[in-house]
């Protein structure tokens, strides 16, 4: 396959940035999207040009490092996958592919397609944990039975990989899906109930400080989330928060 790529290039955080057009030739349909970019970069290096910077690590859809807004969608076309799991057979010979970084005030661009998502870390630091030290003297793991339904729901919420597709895709750059996934996971477990009230207040407070937008329930995040995190989590967080502010 031969493709035309339009890629956002930005030398650094203070650079204005622009779209640049590249041609890639002889792309194998079995390549992953990132391998196609590897090919482009090899090409650019050979020509003495600056390769395109993009975040990636595990390349199997679990670390959450890869991002990319491809043809107007977070992680490109296809559902339930990250960019590293997107394969070139999803495109046709001669296609033009537009590649941009996540766009949000809270995710400033570092270079080209690489953004700074440390806002997510700070939200977790605000309360996305259970305050228990590693003593080796906690109660036995089976001391508190947890209904399977709750355990499964907590797990589903916990599968969030923190990639930021929800923010990127939301027209308001809202981080509600991310925050609510962690709030839900811990709110559904008895261990997490102890600090539930304080947790939701602190995490939402930090979320607001980071400059994310407000949730307007468009549901785009759920559709584009590579792990299919449910909107139910946002509803649960709304509930938890309401209970916390009025009690």
């Amino acid at each position, binding site marked *: 396959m031969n493709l035309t790529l*339009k890629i*956002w290039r930005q030398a650094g955080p203070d650079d204005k*940035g622009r*779209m640049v057009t590249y041609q890639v030739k002889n792309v194998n349909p079995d390549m992953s999207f990132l391998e196609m970019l590897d090919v482009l970069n090899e090409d650019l290096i050979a020509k003495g040009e600056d390769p395109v910077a993009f975040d990636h690590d595990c390349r199997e859809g679990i670390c959450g490092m890869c991002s990319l*807004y491809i*043809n*107007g*969608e977070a992680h490109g*076309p296809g559902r339930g996958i990250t960019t590293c799991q997107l394969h070139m057979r999803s495109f046709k010979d001669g296609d033009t592919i*537009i590649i*941009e970084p996540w*766009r*949000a*005030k*809270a995710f400033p661009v570092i270079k080209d397609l690489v953004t700074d998502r440390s806002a997510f870390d700070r939200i977790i630091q605000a309360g996305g944990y259970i305050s228990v030290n590693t003593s080796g003297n906690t109660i036995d793991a089976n001391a508190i039975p947890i209904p399977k339904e709750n355990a499964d729901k907590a797990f589903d919420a916990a599968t969030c990989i923190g990639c930021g597709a929800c923010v990127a*895709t939301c*027209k*308001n*750059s*809202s981080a509600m899906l991310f925050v609510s996934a962690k709030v839900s996971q811990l709110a559904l477990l008895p261990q997490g109930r102890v600090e539930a009230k*304080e947790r939701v*207040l*602190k995490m*939402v*407070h930090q*979320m*607001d400080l980071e*400059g*994310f*937008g*407000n*949730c*307007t*329930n*468009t*549901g*785009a995040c759920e*559709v*584009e989330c590579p792990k299919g995190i449910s*909107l*139910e989590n*946002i*509803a*649960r*967080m*709304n*509930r*938890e*928060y*309401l209970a*916390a*502010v009025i009690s």
Partner: protein
Amino acid sequence: MEVKSALLGSSIVKKYWMALTGLFLCTFLVVHLGGNLILLKGEDARLSFNAYAKFMTTFPLIKAVSYLLYFSILFHAFDGIVLTLQNRAARPVKYYFNKPEANSTWASRNMAFLGTVILIFIVGHMSNFWYKMHFGDIPMDANGNKDLYEVVVTFFKDPSLGIVYVAFYVLCMVALGFHLVHGFASSFQTLGLYHKKYNALIKNLGLVFSVLVPLLFAIIPIFIYIQ
């Protein structure tokens, strides 16, 4: 500090207010529609409609609720504007190419626009009818009530502009429908009411509500115009 700032300014609380005022305005729509439907009786409606209008503007409890209503409309609009401005600021650099239709409905993405249309409508609507009813010089009907019926009919039957008024009214009702189709179900989600068993019910109820209510509203001026 969290609790206080949360009650006043947090993103989620702003949404609660949006949902609560929105749902309250939905109940108002039903009441308002109930009164308006009297107009479909044609000339026979004159006395009962005017009596209804009088009741609505003078009965103390209704009056009290009406202040809450004015406040709700203003606050819903104000809150909406604040949210929209914040949301715009959250993405200073827009996407070069975006494909939002792949993951969300048009209505859900255009609530601010739809709301603005509705707000403009409300301003016009109130100056045309509400203002006249309260402060205007209106003839009395046989029962000695202000003849609002006459005002309404004259307005929509205006030989040159009547058709424009009717068209604008209908268009605004379409906007209202789209606003409601997202807003109704959305308010439940915001208030945390999410349940696999009931989600479909809420969604369908919202759909019926947002088609039926604006439709019935829109029929009235058309009916008056062609009558």
